[in-house]
């Protein structure tokens, strides 16, 4: 009896302690989830506004108080937007440019980065700095010389000016990939070399398979940048049917007014591919960014 008393008391205390911990954990999780859901809703608000606007009549868009859910959704706005301009064609054009740029990036970036990360050659650091310095040059400054160059090459009104640069490597991706390759132990290279692999063999059998997170960053960022790129397509393309979706959306912004309801509908559809890519690549993307030390 004497021993039962303290034991029961300890057990009770342990149970209470466990219950308290569980309650604290539940409250903690609830608060965290509530916060995350709230933040998610806040971040979703612009997309919700976009969707809501895409279903309104022009006079409802800026009405007060705002109707978050239009009383009579104007689904026809989507048909009107896609009927007014060849947006489906423009999305296909964008997809082609994205794929071509991704291929260009995946071909060029690992090779150049591998060179900077693993080989010693004269002026290596100077060349690396020179390459990095090109990132500091604002894009607008390059437009006239690039236009002049492609004009001389008779490539204006073709997709080449929008694709070719990717095959020569993007400095940001080269920097990112170089840093990543430097984190891969050289012992693996040595082991492969003992097994008879040459420089190319090490690149394709060791470096590239281990660089998947960094390559995911290259793919996703290229996708987003090329999909959203507006300036270069308008400079180099002339044919009405060859524009990408970024240019197609700009047609809704007229000289005197914006067709907000059509613009929002078309924009909403145009961001779906980006959302899908993020959805499927987010795990690799976050891992890739974290491993390189770049915060997204």
């Amino acid at each position, binding site marked *: 009896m004497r021993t039962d008393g303290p034991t029961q008391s300890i057990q009770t205390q342990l149970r209470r302690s466990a219950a308290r911990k569980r309650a604290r954990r539940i409250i903690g999780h609830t608060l965290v989830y509530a916060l995350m859901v709230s933040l998610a809703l806040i971040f979703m608000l612009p997309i919700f506004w976009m969707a809501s606007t895409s279903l309104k009549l022009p*006079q409802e868009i800026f009405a007060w108080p705002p109707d978050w859910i239009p009383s009579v959704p104007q689904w026809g706005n989507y048909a009107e937007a896609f009927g007014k301009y060849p947006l489906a064609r423009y999305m296909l054009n964008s997809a082609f440019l994205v794929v071509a740029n991704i291929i260009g990036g995946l071909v060029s970036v690992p090779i150049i980065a591998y060179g900077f990360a693993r080989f010693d050659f004269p002026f290596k650091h100077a060349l690396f700095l020179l390459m990095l310095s090109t990132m500091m040059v604002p894009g607008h400054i390059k437009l006239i010389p690039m236009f002049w160059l492609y004009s001389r090459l008779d490539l204006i009104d073709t997709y080449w000016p929008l694709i070719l640069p990717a095959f020569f490597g993007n400095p940001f991706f080269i920097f990112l990939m170089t840093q990543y390759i430097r984190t891969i132990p050289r012992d693996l290279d040595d082991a492969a070399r003992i097994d008879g692999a040459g420089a190319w063999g090490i690149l394709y059998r060791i470096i590239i398979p281990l660089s998947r997170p960094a390559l995911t960053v290259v793919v996703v960022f290229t996708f987003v940048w090329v999909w959203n790129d507006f300036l270069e397509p308008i400079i180099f393309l002339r044919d009405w049917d060859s524009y990408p979706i970024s240019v197609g959306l*700009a047609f809704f912004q007229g000289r005197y*007014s914006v067709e907000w309801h059509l613009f929002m509908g078309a924009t909403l559809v145009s961001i779906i591919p980006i959302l899908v890519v993020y959805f499927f690549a987010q795990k690799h993307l976050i891992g890739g960014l974290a491993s390189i030390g770049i915060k997204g």
Partner: protein
Amino acid sequence: MRRHLARRMLVVVSLLLLLLANVGGVGAQDPVTITWWTLASSESPEPAIRAVVEAFEAEHPHIKVDVTIMAESAYGDLMNTTIGAGEGAPDIAYFWETPWLPHTLDITDRLAADPNLSRDDYFEEYFNNWAVWNDRVVGLPFTVGANFVMYNRDVFDEAGVEYPTADWTPSDYIEIATALTDPDKRRWGGDRPRGPFRAVWRNIGATKPYSDDSTTVEGYINGPNSVAAYTWLWDLVDSGATPTPADIEVLGTEGTGPVDLFIAGRLGMATLNNGHMITAANAGVNFGIVPEPHVPGNERFVHAWALRASIWAGTEHPDEAYEFLSFWAGPEGQRINMEIGALIPSLPAVLEDYPDVDSDYFQGFMGVLNATQTAEWRSSHPCWRGAVVRAVSDAWDLIMLGEIGRDEVQATLDAMVEPAQAALDECVPRLGG
């Protein structure tokens, strides 16, 4: 076998010869290709642009038009790039920026010799202000644009306020705007001007910010009429009857005028233009149009513009380019755009056939077209829009933000004289007076 081979060879050679003959034939009759850059808009939509090309090529089989239709937001970058590169610019395009004007072809003689088109066919003021530069004709005015006050009849009826009439004054504007304002409905009575020395400024009597010969600021920017105009702005801001610049920014409406707020019924009156007028009409808004208010006894001004359709000076086909320009910006081209799109033509004879020409609002618009254009002074004084307006922007900003008292307007403008004079002295040698 050998016979078969010989026959096949004969066929191949014949086909090759035929092909070569055709190629030579086509080469001999090759039409001249000219390039045309233009914009798709509700006034001039893509089908209208294609129809212009089709009609022109049918009439002129020796000329082929290679048209590039682009977005408004892309146009400036592309023109700057190609003009800057000295190559790749189109044969024909809108040359609406002043720095592009030196790169336009002088068409004075071509127009004078044109049996089908004359400068007298256009609205005189629009032609003089938008097609002539440094005494030479550098383009043709395509469409006309003008600012005026649009008022929402439903908002007026609800507030029990009488509609404005053409003889209204700037004080009436503030009074009516105040009566229409309803904070509970987040509704403002009117909007604010988008810059000094536009129509209402001149209607008040503030004729110009510096002397005609571009030498003197003192007595102009801080003269009594200028002070009166800035004080009117101060009163308008103080009335609380207008959205602030922040409101306009947050609500994301257009830089050319808050048409979205007007259509939504949240602005009783707004200074808008003919593009907005068509947008509002299409949205079913019940509205009317009056000229901007003015002080009785003063000359009435209108802030107006045209799109300058020009030929690039670097064109290799000036004759063919002119043929197309005179078609596109002449009666035929503007009529096609008017009928397929909603273009308001710059030719009175074509404008007479505008579909809504008898409507109340369109008659209101027609009423402002004959007023004197602010562009008359502005286009002959290029330093105002750039250097000098920046130098005096503090006075504008301080009033717009409500940072100074009414009795400080004169002193604020006095303080602007020195920087404005310095800006003018620096600019005139560069851009001319």
